[in-house]
C-alpha cells in the first residue's frame, strides 16, 4: 500500500473531514478485527458530531462500544486492552475532557513501553477534538495538544484536511504507540479531495500546503485554513506566502520547517492553542535556532489569547487567530504596514 504524502492520487473524491475520519475507521476495522471504538455515545448516536455514524451498524456493539461518562476509566481500559492484543480507538468527545485522562495517558500509556524495558506496547489511539468559536464557552473550547506534545512516549497528530485526516488516522491505528489524534470540531464539514484507493500518511512529514517565497506560515490543524486565507490576502498585496503544516507535533519534521524558514527568511507560527507555553513556542524555538543566520526578522507567534474562552460571540471571536489577523501580522513582519 502506498504511503502518500503528496496530493497526487489516481482517483479522488470530495469528502468532508468527518467522512474521511469515518472512512479511515471503517477501513481499519474491516482490515483488523482487533480495532474497536470506546467512548460516550459512539454507537447509535455516532457521537454528538455524528462522525461515527453507521459504524455500529457494520461492526456491532461489541466493537463500537458506548461507555458511561468515565473518561479516566475507559481510557484506562483502552490502555490495558492495547497492551493485551486489541487496537482500541478511544473517543474523548471534547478535548476539554482530556483533563480527566491525563493519568491514564501520561503516567500509564506513555510510559508502559519504556518502564517495561520495551516489553509491553500500547498501540492505542485517543481521538479527540479541539477548537473554539462554537459559542461553547471555556470548558468546551480548549485546544490542549501542547500538553501531550510535551510527553515522551506519546505521538500527537493534528490533521488539517480530509485527505490528511484519513491517511494520518490510518497510520495512527497501525502505530505501535499511543497516539493522540486531534480533530478541529469546526472542520468536520470542510470538504476536500480524498483518494479513492487505500493510502496512509507517515508521521513526522510536514506538508507544504502552498508554496511561497517571502514568508513562511507554519500552521496546525484548522489554522492551516486560516493561514491559506491569509496567504490569499497577502498575495493581493504582493507578498508570496508559503504555508507549511507539520501535521504531527511529535514526531516533528524540524528539517522541513527550518528549510522553509531558510528559504523565505521570515516566519510566523499559527496555532489555536494558547500562545503562552504552547506549541508555537516549540516550533518558533526550533526555527529560530535552526535558521538563525537566515532570518530577517524574529519568528512571530500567533495562538489563542491568554484567556479562558469567553461565551459571548464578539469576545470569543477575538480570542483565536483569523485570516485577516494573520494577514496583518504577516504583512507587518514583511516590513509593510
Amino acid at each position, binding site marked *: 500500500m502506498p504511503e502518500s504524502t503528496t496530493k497526487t492520487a489516481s482517483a479522488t473524491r470530495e469528502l468532508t473531514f468527518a467522512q474521511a475520519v469515518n472512512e479511515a475507521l471503517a477501513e481499519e476495522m474491516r482490515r483488523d478485527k482487533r480495532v474497536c471504538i470506546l467512548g460516550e455515545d459512539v454507537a447509535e448516536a455516532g457521537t*454528538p458530531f455524528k462522525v461515527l455514524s453507521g459504524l455500529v451498524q457494520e461492526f456491532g456493539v461489541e466493537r463500537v462500544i458506548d461507555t458511561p461518562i468515565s473518561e479516566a476509566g475507559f481510557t484506562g481500559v483502552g490502555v490495558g486492552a492495547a497492551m493485551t492484543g486489541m487496537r482500541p480507538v478511544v473517543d474523548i468527545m471534547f478535548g476539554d475532557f482530556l483533563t480527566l485522562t491525563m493519568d491514564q495517558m501520561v503516567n500509564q500509556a506513555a510510559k508502559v513501553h519504556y518502564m517495561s524495558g520495551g516489553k509491553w506496547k500500547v498501540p492505542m489511539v485517543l481521538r479527540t477534538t479541539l477548537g473554539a468559536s462554537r459559542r461553547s464557552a471555556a470548558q468546551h473550547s480548549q485546544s490542549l495538544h501542547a500538553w501531550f506534545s510535551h510527553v515522551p512516549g506519546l505521538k500527537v497528530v493534528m490533521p488539517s484536511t480530509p485527505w490528511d485526516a484519513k491517511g494520518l488516522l490510518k497510520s495512527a491505528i497501525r502505530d505501535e504507540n499511543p497516539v493522540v489524534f486531534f480533530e478541529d470540531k469546526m472542520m468536520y464539514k470542510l470538504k476536500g479531495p480524498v483518494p479513492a484507493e487505500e493510502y496512509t500518511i507517515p508521521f513526522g512529514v510536514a506538508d507544504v500546503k502552498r508554496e511561497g517565497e517571502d514568508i513562511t506560515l507554519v500552521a496546525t490543524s484548522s489554522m492551516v485554513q486560516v493561514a491559506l486565507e491569509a496567504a490569499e490576502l497577502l498575495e493581493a498585496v504582493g507578498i508570496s506566502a508559503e504555508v507549511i503544516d507539520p501535521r504531527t507535533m511529535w514526531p516533528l519534521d524540524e528539517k522541513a520547517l527550518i528549510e522553509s524558514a531558510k528559504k523565505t527568511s521570515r516566519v510566523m507560527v499559527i496555532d489555536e492553542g494558547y500562545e503562552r507555553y504552547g506549541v508555537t513556542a516549540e516550533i518558533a524555538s526550533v526555527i529560530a535556532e535552526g535558521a538563525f543566520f537566515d532570518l530577517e526578522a524574529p519568528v512571530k507567534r500567533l495562538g489563542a489569547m491568554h484567556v479562558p474562552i469567553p461565551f459571548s460571540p464578539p469576545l470569543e471571536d477575538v480570542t483565536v487567530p483569523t485570516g485577516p489577523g494573520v494577514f496583518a501580522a504577516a504583512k507587518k513582519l514583511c516590513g509593510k504596514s
Partner: protein
Amino acid sequence: MSTVANQTGAEAPVKKEKLLEMYRRMQMIRQFEEQVNELYTRALMPGLAHLYIGEEAVAVGICEALNVDDYITSTHRGHGHCVAKGASPDRMFAELLGKEAGYCKGKGGSMHIADPATGNLGANAIVAGSAGIATGAAFSAKHAGKGQVAVCFFGEGALGQGVVYEVMNLAALWKLPVIYVCENNLYTEYTHFSETLAGDLLQRGTAFGVPSEAVDGQDVMAVNNVAKRMIARARAGEGPSFLVCNTYRYTGHHVGDINREYYRSKQEEQEWKTSRDPIKLLTKWLTEQGHASTEELSGIAQEVAAEMKAAVEFAIASPYPAIDKVAQDVYA
C-alpha cells in the same frame, strides 16, 4: 428504589404562601425554558442550551428548603437550579445571549451562570465537575459554623465519574453539610442509564458512608419533605446525604436534539408529559386540597408569562460587552 415521601405523606404543613411560591418558581422555570427554545429556534441564541422542562419539581422542591446563603452547584442543565435559588430571568437571558448585563457579563453563557447573591456557585459544563466545589463549600460552611449547607445537583450520568465517590467519602469522613442530589432523568445524552450504570444507585451513596434515599422527582412536596430532613441533618452537623430524584426531561438533550426516536419512544415521552407532569400534579393537589383556586394559579402563570416576555426583551435589547472586556477577569 422506593419513594420515601409523597404528597399525602407530607410531614409538616407548608404555608399557602410557600406553596404558591413553589408553584410560581416551577412556572418560571417552565416558561423560561420555553423562551430559551424559542430564542434558539429564532436563531437569536448563540450556541446550544439544555432544557430543564419536566424536572422543575426537583430544583424547586430542594431550593425552597434552602436559605439564601446556602450554596448550590449546578450543571449544564442548570437554568432550573438558578431560577429556583432566586436568580432573575432578565439577567439570565442576558447571559444566554452573551450580553454585558448577564450574570457573568456574557462570559459564561448558559452552562456557567453563577451568582454569589443567591449562593449559586455556578453551573458546570464538565459532568460531575462541581462535585468537588460543592463539597469544598460544605467544608467552608463547617469551618464557618453558621449552619450553612451546600447542595450539589448532578444528572445520573455524573455517577460515571469517580470524583463523585472521592468527595462523598471525604464528606462522610468529615461530616460535611452537603447534599448530593442526583437528577435521574433516565438518559445521559442519548443513552438509557441502565446501559451505563451497574448495581444499585442508592448503594453508591451508602457504600461511602452517605445515607441515601430516592424520591419521586415529579412530586414537589415529596422532594421538599425529604430535602428538609436532609438539610436539617446537615445543619445539625450529622453529615452528608445522597438523594436520587426520579424524573424525566421532556425535550432533547439540548435544544438541537429533535429526532429522539432512536433512543426513546414518543409514547414514553407522552406518558410522562400526560400523567407525571410536576406542574399538573401540583396544580391538582393545590386545588383538591383547597390551597388555591384554578384562577389563582392561572393568574400566577400569566404574571410569569409577562415577566418572561419582558425579561427576553430586556436581554435582546442589551448590548454586548465591549471587546476590550475580553482580557478582564482572567485574574482577580
